[in-house]
């Protein structure tokens, strides 16, 4: 499926999420990297030791969800833009997502944008909570969004409508 369409299967997506117990403890990185390719910036950028160091540069990322605190360093360091940070504790009704977004115009804090799934279909509305675009991010801005909890496993992208 993924190798024919570019869309990760439900099982692949589920395998990149930690347990509900871990999600209930706060922000954590979700890594959707399912193919062995020569690439390791996620592992070398992690300052907390949450990413198990690679033996081979082709290794798949192996994240210790208990040690990860969702700091987001790996999110803008990943050349494949395959990582996001999820905070299930954001509110009773909403989960917050921090995603990399390399398009103009950047959304404004407070703006409502379209929430898209992994096929680019519109599935919800999302409120922009934060826009980070510091020099260290090297032109990969991070957008934090509040999304209804029912879209936890399906939300993955946004469309900014002016």
């Amino acid at each position, binding site marked *: 499926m993924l190798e024919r*369409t570019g869309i990760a299967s439900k099982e692949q997506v589920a395998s990149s999420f930690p347990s509900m117990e871990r999600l209930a403890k706060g922000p954590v990185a979700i890594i959707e990297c399912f193919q062995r390719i020569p690439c390791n910036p996620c592992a070398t950028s992690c300052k907390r030791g949450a990413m198990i160091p690679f033996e*081979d*540069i082709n290794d798949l990322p192996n994240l210790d969800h208990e040690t990860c605190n969702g700091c987001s360093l790996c999110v803008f360091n990943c050349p*494949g833009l395959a990582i996001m940070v999820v905070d299930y504790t954001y509110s009773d009704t909403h989960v917050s997502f921090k995603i990399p977004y390399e398009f103009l115009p950047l959304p404004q804090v407070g703006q409502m944008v379209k929430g898209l799934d992994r*096929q*680019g279909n519109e599935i919800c509305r999302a409120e922009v909570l934060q826009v980070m675009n510091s020099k260290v991010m090297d032109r990969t801005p991070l957008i934090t969004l509040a999304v209804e909890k029912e879209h936890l496993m399906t939300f993955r992208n946004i469309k900014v409508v002016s």
Partner: protein
Amino acid sequence: MKYVEVLVVGGGPAGLCAAISAAESGAEVLLTERSSILGGQLIKQTHMFFGSEKQYAGTRGIDITDILIDKVAELNVEVMKDANVLSVYEDGVISIEQNGKYMKVRPERIIIATGASEKSLAFPNNDMPGIYGAGAVQTLMNIHGVKPGHDVLMVGAGNIGLIVSYQLMQAGVNVKAILDASPTIGGYLVHASKIRRMGVPILTRHTVKRADGNDSLERATIVELNEKWQEIPGTEKEFDVDVMCVSVGLSPLSELLFQSGCEMKYVREFGGYVPLRDSNLKTSLDHIYIAGDVGGIEEASSAMVEGHIAGLAAAMSIDKQHPAFESLYKDYQEQLDSLRAGHAGDHIRAGMAKASL
């Protein structure tokens, strides 16, 4: 006649790294580049590179160019831009044309790093205005700041097709679909996923049937292929597009190597005819070395590492030894091995087995 110790032909990622390593070894280097800008294809790559930190992973290609050019500027490297190497003679003499002036150079060692050219695809009206190679689209957008059109059909789901599709969307161009004749996506799946979640369909097992339009491209017809790569009648789909971007692979630019008389071989995995080479990247001729895509189509990260190896080895062969030769040489060979170790490197390792001396 001009005499130099090491001549590097081509100022892309492989040639720049070859010039750096040869000059750091103490050799006097002449670097020729046919365009007016150094960097080759790197200067169009706005995405973050893969690989490890040693190959600038996480850094954008456009910024890697600046890092390499700055290094070259600090070293004993004479750079000739707008310079076409025309011929490599049997006696080792090279002829160069620059701004209408013809000159001859006799280098002790030559490192050929001429890169690759794009392959084409045969279908009715494939010469119509609006049908581009992916490299041309990147040149228009990322060098000249020109939007190539409004609605694009991308042909080829390798890394170049996927990356250029993403760059087109960043430039505000509508990418209608990406198709590929293969049953699976050839490029990295993380690239495919980030485009798919923008809503762009990726159609594997599809090819272009024809292109139509009055003065320029207006419509593309595609068709599905079966397991035998034959068209399935009745599966035609039409796209109203003013741009078709063809990205169906690259072929080594090996004319100078043919001319030099070194031993050449057709290696399918490498995209065409390539020179046989040893682990120092020396061809069957003692004075000619290679680096990068001219020796086989691969990624820029391995082209840079190959450049360093060829630069170190070519200099060493004329008794210009880098002070840290042993450790650097070992490190670069290990980097190449690890870049090629995974599934993505299967075809490279298969090609190497055929092209090694």
